[in-house]
């Protein structure tokens, strides 16, 4: 860990004014402090925003709003989330551990860094950590790495669960800097690695995530988050699927599907959604739709199972939603 200054701004305005080159916002600290200890991140100034008033969770006709500093555990347990968007609650409850969920914030969760073992080990090269140094993951230990959205520079998996659920629901992040406030759809917020894997999102220097908006979607009550992992708890996804279907008289009128554990960012599956629309909720339909889930996948030497596992995860999620195990 390197020396840094620590301040705790008392307002959003103060925080934005204090931000500068080499500064980092500290919310729950579950990623930042971890990576500072590993010498992966070395901010010169840490701005503790934990006390800022960005914690409210509210629901109206336009949808759900979650303040960036709402805790993962509070958000998961909130009746508005659990009632209107079960997929969000489930994604959160299958993340991390209870201790971490009690500390970690929603904004911080959306900005969590990849779990790629090379990114987290400063003794190895990593294009994301040190641009241009190379990517050992492409030939090394890559069982958990991405198969979608990868490049020759990086195959690091986006680690989140919440972001997958929010991507399926067309959610947006609200961002603020000294020039004002803007909203970006989550799908547009995250960047593909291409040849600049150190750039992970469209946040401007000093810009702060202040909240998340989830559009109203009545049929999101029928939604699910399926997470497949080696260990039953406290483990990242090999694959995951966030799914919601509008099911009427046994027919899928509309569907929202996104996948995690497979992409360099949360991966929306529009082809699968399209293949489900207007079709009966039946195993053969699920299978046909799931066959499109891993289109374009580029497996690495040790994650060749992921396309098949992703297809199976889609089928499992749809089967659950249809109420027929």
């Amino acid at each position, binding site marked *: *860990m*390197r020396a840094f200054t620590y301040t705790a701004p008392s307002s959003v305005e103060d925080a934005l004014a204090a931000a500068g080159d080499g500064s980092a916002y500290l919310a729950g600290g579950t990623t930042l402090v971890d990576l500072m200890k590993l*010498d992966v991140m070395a901010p010169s100034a840490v701005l503790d925003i934990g006390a800022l008033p960005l914690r409210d969770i509210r629901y109206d006709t336009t949808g759900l709003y979650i303040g960036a500093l709402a805790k993962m555990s509070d958000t998961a347990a909130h009746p508005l989330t659990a009632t209107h968007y079960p997929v969000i609650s489930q994604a959160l409850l299958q993340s991390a551990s209870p201790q971490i969920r009690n500390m970690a914030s929603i904004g911080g969760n959306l900005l969590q860094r990849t*779990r790629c*073992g090379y990114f987290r080990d400063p*003794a*190895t090269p990593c294009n994301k950590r040190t641009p241009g140094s190379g990517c*050992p993951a492409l*030939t*090394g*230990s890559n069982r958990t790495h991405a198969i979608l959205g990868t490049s020759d520079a990086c195959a690091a998996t986006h680690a989140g669960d919440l972001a997958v659920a929010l991507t399926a629901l067309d959610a947006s992040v609200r961002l603020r800097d000294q020039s004002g406030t803007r909203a970006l759809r989550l799908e547009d917020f995250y960047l593909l690695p291409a040849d600049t894997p150190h750039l992970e999102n469209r946040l401007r220097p000093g810009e702060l995530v202040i909240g998340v908006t989830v559009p109203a979607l009545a049929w999101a009550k029928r939604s699910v988050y*399926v997470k*497949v*992992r*080696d*260990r*039953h*708890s*406290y*483990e990242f996804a*090999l*694959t995951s699927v966030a799914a919601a279907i509008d099911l009427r008289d046994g027919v899928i009128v509309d569907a929202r599907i996104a996948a995690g554990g497979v992409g360099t960012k949360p991966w929306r599956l529009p082809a699968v959604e399209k293949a489900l629309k207007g079709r009966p909720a039946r195993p053969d339909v699920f299978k046909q739709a799931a066959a499109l889930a891993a289109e374009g996948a580029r497996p690495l030497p040790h994650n060749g*199972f992921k396309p*098949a*596992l992703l*297809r*199976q*995860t889609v*089928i*499992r999620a749809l*089967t*659950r939603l249809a109420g027929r*195990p």
Partner: protein
Amino acid sequence: MTNRVDGPRLVTGAARFSGDHPVDGLAHGYLVLSTIANGTIRSMSADGALAAPGVLAVFTPFNPLRYAGPWAEGPGYFLYGPNRFPLQPGDRQIRHHGQVIGLVVAETFEQARDAAALVETAYDARRPNASFADGIPNAVVPPPLTGPPVVDVLEPRFGSIDAALAASAVTVRASYSQRPEHHNPMEPHTAIAAWDTDGKLTVHSGTQGPLLHAQEIAVAMEVEAESVRVISTYVGGAFGGKASTWPPAVLAAAAARQVRRPVKLALTREQLYSVTGHRPAVVQDVALGAARDGKLLAIKHDCVSTRSNVSSLYNGVSGYSLGVYPTPNVHAGTRVVTLDIPPATIMRAPGEEAGSFGLECAMDELAHELALDPVALRLANDTDHHPTNGGPYSSKHLAECLRVGAARFGWSRRKVQPRSVVEGELLVGYGMAVGVYGANRYEMTMRVSFRNDGTVHVGAATSDMGTGMRTVLSITAADNLGLPLSRVVSVLGDTRLSPDPMPIGAMAGAVGSAGSSSVAPAVRAAAKAATDALILRATQHGRSPFHGLTPEEVSYRDGVLSANGRSVAFGPLLTLMEVDGVTASGTSTPEATPTHAMSSFAAHFCEVRVNRFTGETRVARMTSVVDAGTILNPAAARSQIIGGVVWGLGQALLEGAEVEPATGRIANANFADYLIPTNADIPDIDVHFLNYPDTIFSPTGSRGLGEIGAVGSAAAIANAVFNATGIRARDLPISPDKLLPASEE
């Protein structure tokens, strides 16, 4: 049921582990590790580190620590094999990734850690030899370790084991593999070393065998063994990983001598993976030949283990098949592949853990082939004599373990046809396996002391590594002296508690599931000796009411001495006599040439649920029935078996280090990526003890049970996975991807 005597101290944080001891003037060390696996250090620059705040010294091959080396054969050599110790003068060779190449000593831990990041190292790197798979075709037969690496027992009519297999009505053959495993004790290895002005060294260091640890440190420091005191009062888990001496204790002692300050050296979680030992990776080929009725005619068990170029230990797992099922023809062979990887060491059920996985999975495959119930197949091959050495078992009730276990578990509800029970998303399967672990017991000397405050102190230098040894000691002393547990104080984990010379087995302390079996009979002997000494003293002391009587006239019962109608409790008696206490030692020695074979036995039953879409295996419940002689403390014994079974669960479903073939780096050397079971992975585990005293083995009738839970339990899980899915997952761990072909219909 007896609660742990140290339970409140442990759960309130009052118990002091090795790093917790306050020491005046303490400096802190932090290790610098190599980032290549093979090559030479060209240069190291410590300038930046030396200029950092609080730094006292930076030791590297260019400014070496002074201690004896190359330390190839410490006192523990025959138990654990030689280890090459790092940071020796002039040694710039890199032999594995994560090798110790530097030690920074500073005023605080954080200063040492941050300065360590400033040490710059330039290497002449070579490509390491780190691929186990590439080495297997050229594996070689190693020197013997605990037994010969190749054993053949054949009927005269067969020229080879293959001929015996060919003559069998039914044969099965399969290959099983597993990756290196790491102990991951809750407490990483930590040592505080302090020299006094007389050149005496005190080391606080968590270890399984304080006496052996002290001797090894003494050899390294080139001082007399009596000059080294090891204090290891509480140990935060060991599992074999703290049986021999690892760099923290030796390097802390050497650094403390050179900086003239006490030094604390604590490994980080990540550093454990390359600075301390692991269980070697192993691939095993098992072939079984049997008659149609299931009676075994031949067992051929070959294995290939990794071996580190800095240590001699390998995982000779095939020898397990010499001691389970009787068969007229058996072959057990071990070969090794020597690699540029971190050192290996013993780990809970070394050999038996993997060997039982191979043998018991193969038995399940044979049962399936023969259309026999797996329990019936085991019963058909049960024996009351050791399969290869021929001696009768001192006490063996494996058949009862099988019958009782089957009944408790509900084995009769198992469907013979794999993949025939579907509950919603889940495929349900049952599996079972047995485990055998040799009963070990070492000569042990204990001390029992009657104190004038009415308590009894009992102790020795051996260690409680978290298993409950302290409680067993108290229970045994209380039982033998007729005292309530509250009046017995057990003291452990300090070399000063065993001033008398001991054989090396006893010095090794708590290893080989021998802890309680060695200690309990010695406590019994010491209690008798102390009672005799107390009576003798009471007849000789002028102020004693028993003065002048012969010892035969005085009796001891439940803490009270009586003669001629007079009774005095020992506390008031000693007070009257103005004596602090009366102490005596007692030694218990196993038979030098045992007439019997002695082992603990277990039968494990398991229900798994495998997701039929995505292949995740979850263990729903397990039943383990254990035949380990007299159970001294049912609560702690149950915990030991649960712990062992959870190890089997980790072995079967989760664990394994990923050594990168190209770099020799362990890719998952941390708690996030090296998966061990969480509470959510662990089901209800039903543990039942048969509790038949084995008085041929020891006067207290108890055999070891620290490891038997980890023998066979992984196979029971894998066999249940087959019953659930129809897939034989022979390469561990059984992760979801390995069960996927069944899922993607």
